[in-house]
């Protein structure tokens, strides 16, 4: 569920208004059913806050639906739920949109160097009470979460017998308790690893989709964010010299800090900031060509919200045949269903754009977020930047050119046409691929392509420049294979020769690593030439080793 944002400043404190601006940029990810913030805000005594059915003490605010937000001197039994007890962290959460937080609590101008925030789309608990709004805290740990855990029951089992906890029933709450418990035993970095991979403890591993940002209070606050190994949820990172921002959408980071360098995290990556340091297993991916200046008279996207720009563009395109749009920042559905004309946009194109596109030309000067080119049948799209997840899903025709990187599950169910990627690709490239050509050049970013390549591929061809490790394509459990072969030998069911042959890998795919044949060069060059021309590059594929993947049948 939801949109998350987190930031850590190495310099000036950041005002609440900037955080809200980022969250409001992800309005399409939220609802009026929950929003919240946590910030680093040391105090000389614990801050105890609760939602209560009755007012208690003298510090309280009456919320709607007969509920009070109360601040207590000490933890006492109340008819409600204590959502904060920490001397390092402060939390504000409401039922409403992010902007309503400032209004409800009158916290204009409140500043901190560390923030996390959340706009909520309720999944597994009602959106009527602020109990269920994020952030969730456990001691000095505060978290925001986008996703829905399938491991919730197991995680609760882990926590239940270690700490006395009053659960609201929201799955995200479990993450705060797990983190608190694991950080104490393992330190922050190992705790995050444990949540993602579960190597030491049972039942602490998170399963299902999650992108999480957290703050751990203390004299020296720790900030961090991580995203599930399958990359079921998006998480972008933005940096300047003095600021680290993470968010569910690139557009949100740009709304906080227009000058930030922004890129997408891959599944299983985490980033941690503490003191003056940033650490983690993340990689910086930031590649762009020189971009042309937008013309005068282009449509100004900042006048439209995320969903109302698309119909305007469609109408204009039908009328004029060529349309330019500037200041695009997360606007969705652009170019959906177009069959002719030229569309040029500057900025970050929002999710689900260029869907069911059957003709025409779509040039993006900047990045595209997830699910660009879904069910595309024809036409040409060129991205002068990077693409998010599921690029060209179920694409049956047409051409997509990407200057930089593409995310997870690029070319999933790709059935026709071509996709050329100048940089690298995340996990599950070409999953269920049924036809067409996918080329990953690793020229603008020479990073390894993620593993699980060509899972369930039944047609088409994938060309990846360089030698891709075999286990990235079809993972073979050597231990199991050797034991199996040995057992056959022991029963006299195979001879030594067969035994050796068995240990060679069996795969549904033909995988070759070699230079391209003349025929292949001829076939690919028509696209590589176009790629070079579009992005003003000079990539030559003739002398390099490629990993070539196609199905056996």
């Amino acid at each position: 569920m939801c949109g998350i944002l987190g930031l850590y400043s190495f310099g000036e404190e950041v005002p609440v208004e900037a955080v809200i601006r980022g969250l409001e940029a992800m309005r399409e990810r939220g609802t009026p059913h929950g929003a919240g913030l946590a910030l680093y805000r040391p105090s000389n005594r614990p801050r105890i806050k609760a939602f209560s059915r009755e007012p208690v003490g003298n510090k309280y605010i009456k919320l709607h639906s007969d509920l009070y937000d109360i601040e207590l001197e000490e933890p006492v039994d109340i008819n409600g739920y204590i959502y904060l007890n920490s001397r390092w962290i402060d939390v504000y959460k409401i039922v409403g949109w992010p902007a309503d937080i400032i209004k409800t609590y009158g916290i204009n101008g409140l500043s901190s160097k560390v923030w996390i925030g959340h706009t909520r789309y309720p999944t597994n608990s009602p959106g009527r009470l602020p109990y269920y709004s994020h952030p969730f805290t456990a001691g000095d740990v505060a978290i925001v979460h986008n996703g829905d855990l399938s491991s919730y029951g197991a995680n609760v089992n882990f926590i239940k017998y270690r700490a006395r906890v009053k659960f609201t029933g929201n799955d995200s709450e479990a993450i705060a308790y797990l983190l608190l418990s694991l950080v104490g035993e393992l330190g922050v970095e190992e705790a995050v690893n444990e949540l993602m991979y579960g190597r030491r403890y049972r039942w602490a591993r998170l399963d299902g989709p999650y992108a999480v940002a957290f703050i751990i209070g203390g004299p020296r606050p720790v900030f961090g964010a991580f995203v599930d190994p399958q990359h079921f949820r998006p998480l972008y990172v933005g940096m300047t010299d003095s600021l680290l921002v993470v968010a569910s959408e690139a557009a949100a980071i740009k709304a906080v800090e227009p000058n930030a360098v922004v890129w997408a995290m891959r599944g299983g990556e985490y980033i941690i900031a503490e003191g003056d340091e940033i650490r983690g297993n993340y990689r910086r991916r930031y590649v762009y060509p020189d971009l042309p200046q937008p013309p005068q008279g282009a449509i100004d996207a900042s006048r439209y919200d995320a969903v109302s720009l698309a119909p305007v563009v469609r109408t204009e395109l039908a009328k004029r045949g060529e349309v330019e749009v500037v200041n695009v920042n997360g606007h969705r559905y652009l170019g959906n269903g177009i069959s002719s004309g030229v569309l040029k946009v500057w900025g970050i194109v929002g999710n689900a754009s260029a869907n069911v596109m059957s003709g025409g030309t779509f040039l993006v000067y900047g990045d595209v977020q997830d699910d660009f080119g879904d069910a595309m049948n024809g036409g040409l799209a060129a991205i002068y930047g990077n693409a998010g997840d599921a690029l060209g899903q179920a694409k049956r025709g047409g051409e997509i050119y990407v200057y930089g990187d593409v995310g997870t599950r690029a070319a999933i169910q790709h059935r026709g046409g071509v996709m050329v990627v100048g940089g690298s690709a995340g996990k599950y490239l070409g999953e269920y691929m049924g036809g067409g050509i996918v080329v990953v050049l690793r020229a603008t970013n020479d990073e390894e392509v993620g593993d699980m390549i060509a899972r369930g591929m039944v047609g088409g061809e994938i060309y990846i420049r360089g030698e891709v490790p075999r286990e990235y394509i079809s993972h073979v459990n050597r231990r199991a294979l050797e034991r199996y072969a040995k057992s056959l030998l022991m029963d006299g069911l195979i001879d030594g020769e067969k035994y050796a042959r068995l240990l060679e890998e069996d795969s549904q795919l033909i995988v070759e690593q070699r230079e391209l044949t003349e025929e292949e060069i001829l076939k690919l060059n028509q696209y590589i030439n176009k790629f070079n021309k579009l992005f003003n590059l000079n990539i030559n594929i003739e002398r390099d080793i490629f990993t070539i993947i196609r199905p056996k049948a």
Partner: protein
Amino acid sequence: MRQLNIYLRPAVHRVPEFWSHDRIDYVRRSALEGLPPYALEENPSKIGRLLDRLAFKDLRPREVNELLKRAESLDVDVGIDFFGTRLTAPIYLGDMSFGALSGNPNIAIAKAATEEGVVAGIGEGGLHPEVAKYKNIVVQWASARFGMDMALLKAGLAVNIKIGQGAKPGIGGHLPGKKVTKIIAELRKIPEGSEALSPAPHHDIYSIEDLAQRVKALRDLTGKPVLVKVAAVNKIMYVAVGVARSTAEGIIIDGAGAGTGATPVSVRNHLGIPIDYAIPVVDKWLRENGVRENFLVIGGGMLYSASDLAKLIALGADMANIGTAALLSFGCIMCHSCHTGGCPTSLTNMIGARPDLDIKWASAMLRRYLRALRLGLKAILYALGMDNLKELAGRRDLLGLYYADESVAATIGVDLLAKGEIAFYQDYVPILPRELYEEGKVPITGMGGVVPGYTYPARRPLDLLRIEAAQVTHPSVDPYREEVDVRVYVNGFEYDTPVVVPGLERAAVMAGYALGALVDGDGCPEPQYCLSSMPHIRLPPLKYIEPREGVVVIDERLGGDVWLEEAVALLDERARQAGIREKMTIIAAGRLFSGADVYKLAALGADLVEPREAFELLSSKQAPSYAVKRRWYENLISGLTKELKLAMGAGGITNYFHMIGNRDLLRSLDGRIAEKLNVALAGN
């Protein structure tokens, strides 16, 4: 060529299931006469669906049935507005694709729906040119995008985003290459003879906010209302509220037991909940969250009679989704062989030449069946003193529930009029499918109707538990192509599957060792693979077992005072309380048969599971040689493990070892069993 236009004798089932001859006869008589044999059953049933145990409190069935003869002239409107098109009855003929069906049935359905004034979903697989001629259709946006283009999207009255279906919640689709014939290939826009895979989730929809994005994208693209079809999974209420908030105009909820062209048997039988549990709970949640108004709720799965329709609407639905019964009206004999390509009634996609279904005959039969349902509904409404359907919607107060427990009645919000239990038991010996042990394949079947303990006899309380599947709120995982890890560790030693193999003979021992399973026996080439080499205790299933570190085998062959499932659940809980759960290994051995059984025992707290019955059935089979027998055992182990992985993947679970004891993954159809096993009741 001869065209098929007659009824064949219905298939005979060894173990009774939902689509009995009586029910098939109800549909056929309705289709022949244009009037149902009766509008309401004489008495509530002691076994079966909740719908069969429900009755309208104030109605006398006999009097209502008397009304049937003059139903046409009764001044009652059972029509409903479907986004600007007035339907004559609240019926949606649900989503059978060209590819699942053989073409002529698709045309017959679209024709009958349009002519009789109901609506038909065309399913995934492109727009058949003959189907496109009919107005009352709903097109589908599904995970594979087969045949997707603007022409398809612009057709029909609405667009339906298909997330899942009742017969295989959280499972992807697979049309084998041999069924992808020329015309199917053209419409789906894929090469002829190529495998047609549909991913389990939409890979752009991993959460509710992603769904909202797709709903709005399709509305932006087509200007049409958008429906979302989901399976009735354990947590359907969260899904439904999320769908309503996504701005979709409606939801189609497909319950357990619903039909299909092909589904893994263990998935069909154990995942998701029946529609009569789902609808009242969904209706209640939608109302409480203020999103029920102007939101269309369509429910389906094992519906066939006018009485079903009336009760489902009273429980909280607006419309009923009818699929299987429509096929029954023009010839289906419920032989469960849709997936083989050998449908004897020419309904499902066929391999090789067979007579085509007579479209004229089929659509006329379906029209009369629809008419019969409409008249039956009119009679019931009239008897209730109502003028139109709206008055009936959500009137749970008009119903009474018989022969159930209080917690079920409370969950669905209906008064309990006679106490009883949902679970019904009958012993039978299951058949070990050939494809399982000869080929190591997960057994596949066609059509639904089997929900153990509910529409099909249960053999033990475990059968009443329903496994969670993911719809919308988180993604399912395809275990054939993606990571689902089923390794388990005992004392730090790694096994490749949690299926424990009874060491019945050398072939079984060696097969277990070969596939990295723990063998309950001795003679393993490496001792760690044999249970006999490690310290363990073996106990019968007892209500009280002292938790202790190390390996505990609970073996139901030793007798005991409770069911195996209960003993496992109790011991797991007790061990956690004692703080030693991580230091102990619980192995459950018993009369267990499928990967779904393994899943359920694991979720109740077993680390490893020994499905003895499956192996014993295999051991009694004569094999031509040791080599063959050994291969059969290997296939059985890998087949059971695949079934387990399918169930895990459906719920988006990627690691077995970390899910053990996660009871949140299970729901019980029966209140007493829920209490005993410390599992929540379906609908909660």
